[in-house]
């Protein structure tokens, strides 16, 4: 069963291949994402994040999910030497972080429901599980940042998360915490494959902020591979990236 809905301002697709799937199972993912939006969106007047920014809630009254996310954000900030920061000009905006985290939580939910073969794709950030309809590993294209109708790499993924960060399509929604007004333009697309989408997404965002140095950062991270494309259309990949590249022979 496959469904796509527009949520968080982007298309979100859930496909569950397992036979015993019901509409309720797929919908549970969207219900969870709706809830996440209500709590974390800085664009919604009634969200907890908005209330925190307006100082309407004190820290001791934060919900458990907010506390969890803030702790994880702090952890990410340290692991990326400050290149990941959810406070922009003093305002809390975890929307870039929450997406990967929430996809991973939904992935765990589906696993708990007993599903083995599925994927969740929120605006190009992907968590896969098991096999596709044909019984093969999931085949994922990395989109050409210069032409949305083309893929420039094809990956074969089994249980990992794949996230791509870029400013190309949406303009500048990612910024450098050290220089918030500086435009990030040398690297236009940064893809990270990691053990899950939460890990892949947070490090893809940080690596993108680091621009050309980001690929060295990913190279040093154990269990992660990266693929970046610069503004001239030159790609750079980490040394172990090729093991994920799809080869028709296997």
């Amino acid at each position, binding site marked *: 069963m496959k469904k796509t809905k527009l949520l968080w301002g982007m298309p979100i697709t859930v496909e569950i291949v397992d036979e015993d799937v019901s509409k309720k199972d797929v919908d549970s993912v969207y219900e969870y994402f709706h809830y996440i939006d209500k709590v974390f969106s800085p664009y919604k007047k009634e969200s907890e994040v908005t209330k925190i920014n307006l100082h309407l809630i004190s820290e001791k009254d934060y919900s458990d999910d907010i506390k969890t996310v803030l702790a994880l954000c702090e952890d990410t900030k340290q692991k990326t030497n400050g290149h990941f920061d959810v406070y922009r000009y003093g305002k809390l905006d975890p929307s870039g972080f929450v997406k990967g985290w929430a996809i991973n939580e939904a992935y765990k939910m589906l696993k708990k429901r007993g599903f083995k073969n599925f994927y969740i794709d929120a605006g190009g950030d992907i968590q896969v599980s098991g096999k596709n309809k044909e019984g093969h590993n999931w*085949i994922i294209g990395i989109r050409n940042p210069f032409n949305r109708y083309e893929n420039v790499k094809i990956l074969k993924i089994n249980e990992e998360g794949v996230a791509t960060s870029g400013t190309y399509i*949406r303009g500048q929604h990612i910024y450098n915490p050290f220089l918030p007004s500086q435009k990030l333009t040398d690297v236009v697309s940064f893809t990270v494959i990691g053990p899950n989408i939460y890990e892949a997404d947070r490090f893809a965002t940080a690596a993108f902020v680091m621009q050309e140095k980001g690929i060295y950062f990913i190279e040093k991270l154990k269990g992660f591979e990266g693929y970046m494309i610069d503004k001239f259309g030159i790609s750079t990949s980490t040394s172990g990236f090729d093991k994920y590249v799809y080869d028709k022979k296997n």
Partner: protein
Amino acid sequence: MKKVLLSLFIIVSFLIYALRQKGGNSSVSNNQTGSLNNGIPSTVLGNSTSANMNYKEGTYTGSTVDAFYGNVQVQIVIKSGRIADVQFLQYPNDRSRSIEISNAVMSMLRKEAIQAQSAQVDIVSGASDTSQAFIQSLDSALIKANSN
């Protein structure tokens, strides 16, 4: 030996790339103007959107649609009942388009010019996009092309 081969590979790919840039017919730079300045290749739209439809000749502007990080608005040109061109009037993009060769940092990491791949895929990974907003704006332009 491996290092020598790798550096050779890097140098050769750079030379090829530099030559293509100079010649001005690099597939990469063509794609860049093709996808951003001219919108969507008309062949793609001609096949998918205008099948079995006869739109009236003219230029139509779609509504402005909020795409979360900016607005999307398209303008279409109808010729002989088909979409001949799509232009973006508004697009949330401020990427610098200036092309200049920077001082490339050589590294042990694999560098290559990107190339289109044709294999069928299950899912696509890319920066979150504005396709939904694009479709909405395009739809509203097509409605105008039908009723005028």
